[in-house]
């Protein structure tokens, strides 16, 4: 090494006392960190949804057999999707609610652009249970929509949270109408 009796002339030292060795430590540590991260990412990412799981991420549904007042549940990405052919009374109930009454304000027009068709993921936004209210005779909660039995969340006829611990309205999945009676979810 270039250690000499006269450090003032040592080319390894800069004016403020930092050495080339400090720089080498820093860059080596940074490279080591980058290398570790580069190795860690494939390990971590391998736990994310695999290609075959992602490939099942869209589905098509024929709406023609669902009559007014009926509801069906289809599977999308492993989760139930509630499709409800709403009655005029249900639409009216959903659209007449003042936004101030909603914990998660959202208009029914946004949630259901075609008012008779309400399409949403049937998973409670609290802790993931399936709310009741799809089948005839099931409890629909205080607002005539859906009721989650796990921790008592009440949803209205637009699937919006009204009472209980759930933080958000039931999610509306991305979907489009291919024609008047067929939708593509995902």
């Amino acid at each position: 090494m270039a250690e000499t009796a006269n450090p003032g002339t040592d080319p390894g030292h800069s004016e403020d006392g930092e050495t080339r060795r400090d720089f080498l430590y820093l860059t080596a540590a940074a490279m080591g960190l980058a290398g570790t991260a580069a190795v860690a990412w494939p390990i971590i990412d391998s736990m994310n949804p695999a290609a075959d799981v992602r490939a099942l991420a869209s589905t098509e549904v024929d709406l023609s057999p669902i009559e007014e007042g009926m509801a069906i549940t289809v599977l999308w990405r492993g989760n139930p999707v509630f499709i409800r052919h709403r009655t005029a009374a249900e639409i009216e109930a959903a659209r007449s609610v003042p936004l101030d009454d909603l914990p998660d304000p959202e208009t029914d027009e946004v949630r259901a652009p075609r008012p008779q068709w309400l399409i949403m993921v049937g998973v409670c936004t609290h802790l993931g249970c399936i709310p009741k209210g799809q089948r005839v005779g099931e409890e629909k909660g205080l607002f005539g929509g859906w009721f989650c039995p796990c921790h008592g969340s009440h949803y209205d006829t637009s699937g919006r949270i009204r009472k209980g611990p759930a933080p958000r309205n039931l999610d509306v999945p991305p979907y489009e109408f291919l024609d008047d009676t067929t939708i593509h979810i995902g």
Partner: protein
Amino acid sequence: MSEFKPTNPVIRWIEHRLPIFSFIDHAVGSGYPTPRNLNYWWNYGSLAGIALVIMILTGIMLAMQYTPHQDFAFDSVERIMRDVNYGWLLRYVHMNGSSFFFIVVYIHILRGLYYGSFKEPRELLWIIGVTLLLLMMAASFLGYVLPWGQLSYWAAKVITNMFTAFPIIGEPLVTWLWGGYTVGNPTLNRFYALHYLIPFVIVGVVILHIWALHRFGSSNPVGIEADGPQDKIPFHPYYTVKDLFGLGVFLTLFAALIFFAPNLLGETINYVEANPLVTPAHIVPEWYFLPYYAILRSITFDLWFLSAKLIGVIMMFGSTMILFLVPWLDRSPVRSARFRPWYKWFFWIWVFDVAVLTWVGANPPEPPYLYIGQVGTVWYFAHFLVILPLLSIFEPTKPLPSSIGEPVLKGGGAATAGAAAKPVEKA
């Protein structure tokens, strides 16, 4: 105590090259000097170790028969119950073993809290112990999912969904945990892998726990340090025999449960195969998670920018995490509750509070249970954050005995006849 001097030539040959026998002797043999006044509450450490061995042994045997796939898991467990030779026994031992493991560990923790075993210089021993509790909780949760019954599935879904409470990272984190968009086959596979892994991590941390224990030795019911050799007796044979007696009682109760009421602590609905489209009407966790569940559900209001869900999740995890801080919250110089007239009462009130939360957790989250649970939750945290620090300052403690021997032996035990006094003469 006595130096380890094997007579068997084979043991001596090995010992010379790898001093493993003296290591074991120092850990759980005659080479571990133990306070002479330990009562039966000190049985639960070794019982927990034995419970761990029982769980690993039965678990490995079950793993040879189990299929971790969403289409076959439930049936493979039923096959274990009906077709595999003694499969019913292995499964019932494993299933109820987790309950007994938790009973034993909870009593072990309560003993530590009552007698102040966590205090200086044993804080790290305590912290390692709380870490073991967290690992146990993870292992039991993961294992509960494997039979793929209705509660298995919905427990997995509800618990993993808790992470969605965290802003921004919540959703991608849960998708990552699931390996999909809901609890499914990838989830079951990874839970199985981790359920097999964690017990061996626990074994490693248990070794750290015992290592830290031996640094200063066991605490004891009077909570003062041993004065000298007259206050101690060798772990073997004195406490090995006492522990064996306790084990006999433990195994008798355990066998009674396994053979006469193997499903007493379980839920019938878990014998219905998982159905992702139907949530059971009442989701309840295993009994040993009920107090935490009650705390989670007692938060029904938002606070500032925090959602009720997030606060509930934080409080639930916090209720266990707060144990890490106990050595710094309880700063009373007196360890044992025997000499702490106020703490003794507050300790039992807290135990009662946890029992109430357990009961609340088993009931639906509506009045009156909801309000009782909220009061219980407030008390739970107040005990740690308010009562313990205040007691540390204001409690008038009773005078401590001058030595471990004094309360039981007239004259402080130093001058007693018999084997225990001999080391004094040497010293």
